[in-house]
């Protein structure tokens, strides 16, 4: 009897592929792992998607419509949060949104049915953290380049009474410095939680089915039904988390662009 022993976090294990363990630059290991592979797949799929829609036709086909819809969505996001000046961030925010969205979605594909294990790169805080730090670095760069040391006035909201400034300033500064962590961790936690939940439920289904008819109906069937719902929810979360990441990047960029 195949005991359904499911390790819910095994799916996040990084494995080196193609015997590239020894690859390194300056002493740092850069082995090509399953995580790297799925980032590559994300890149290729996104590349194919956008390339297929960049046909520049006056009357768009379905594919072009889809790509233009996604572009227009990010463009509107920038317009709404930053205004006219938001256009110049479109390449970065679109890349961010597209990369996260496609990575999330690809990680949810039921490819295990054909023996391939999808890996969600965005369920690793190493990855989301780098993306968050990148966004934060751009915000800092833009802020200081545009406003110089006046950028620190961001930490003193309008109308703050002078005696309150010594208290408000550190609070605002801390809330500002926490941004990259909250940005990166939010995506990582949402992705990981969803995948762990699906794994745990599938573990219930397997164990329940193996343990007999009673537990099949009591535990396995309800878990399976719940899994279907949560799969739909996870698709939603995949989109929402990509949106939230892009949206918060826009909001932070707005702070840097316009202060407040």
């Amino acid at each position, binding site marked *: 009897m195949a005991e359904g022993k499911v390790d819910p976090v095994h799916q*996040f294990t*990084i494995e080196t592929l193609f015997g590239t363990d020894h690859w390194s630059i300056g002493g740092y290991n850069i082995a090509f*792992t399953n995580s790297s592979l799925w*980032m590559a797949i994300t*890149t290729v799929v996104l*590349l194919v998607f*956008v390339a297929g829609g960049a046909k*520049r036709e006056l009357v768009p086909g379905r594919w072009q419509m889809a790509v233009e819809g996604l572009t227009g969505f990010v463009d509107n996001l920038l317009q709404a949060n930053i205004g006219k000046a938001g256009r110049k961030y479109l*390449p970065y925010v679109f890349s961010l949104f597209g990369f996260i969205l496609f990575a999330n979605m690809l990680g949810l594909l039921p490819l295990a049915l054909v023996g391939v294990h999808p890996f969600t790169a965005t369920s690793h805080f*190493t990855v989301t953290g780098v993306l968050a730090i990148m966004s934060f670095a751009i915000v800092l760069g833009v802020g200081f380049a545009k406003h110089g040391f006046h950028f620190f006035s961001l930490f003193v909201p309008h109308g703050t009474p002078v005696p309150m400034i010594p208290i408000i300033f550190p609070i605002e500064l801390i809330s500002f410095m926490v941004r990259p962590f909250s940005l990166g961790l939010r995506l990582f936690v949402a992705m990981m939680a969803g995948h762990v939940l699906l794994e745990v439920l599938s573990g219930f289904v397997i164990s329940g089915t193996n343990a007999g008819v009673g537990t099949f109906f009591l535990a396995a069937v309800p878990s399976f039904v719940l899994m279907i719902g949560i799969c739909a929810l996870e698709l939603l979360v995949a989109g929402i988390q990509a949106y939230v990441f892009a949206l918060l990047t826009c909001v932070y960029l707005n702070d840097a662009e316009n202060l407040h």
Partner: protein
Amino acid sequence: MPQIEQLATTYSSQVFWLLVFFGIVFFVIGRGMLPKVVSTMDGRDKQIADDLAAAEAARAAADAEEEAWRVQANKQRAEAQAVIAAAKADAAKATDAKLATASARIDETVTAAEARIAAARAAALGEVEGVAAEAAQDIASRLAGLSIPAAEAQAAVKGVLANG
């Protein structure tokens, strides 16, 4: 949790490959393809706006044309009515003139006829005088055997007729 357990051994690889692939996404898609998509969208939006403006202009032109046509039509109608009125007036005037000449001619004819009638009556009266004088001569010669001269008889008849 592999994310933490494997952190030390995999972080450099994770960061490196993320930067590689996100870099590809940013430079190839974000910088390379996206401007084309955006310019296509902007071009389309502009074309639609231009077409709408052109349609609006064409509509305004059509409205102006119609207005001008209406003014023209009204003017021509007024002109036509003026021509009709003038023609009517002319016709009435011509009719009056014709009627006047016709009545003048009739008057003339009537006057001439009356003159002829008066002459005829006078002639007839003259003849009656002559016949009466002859008759009186004849009666006087027969009854009284008097032979009265014609001039006397005539004078007597004239006196009677005049007193008549």
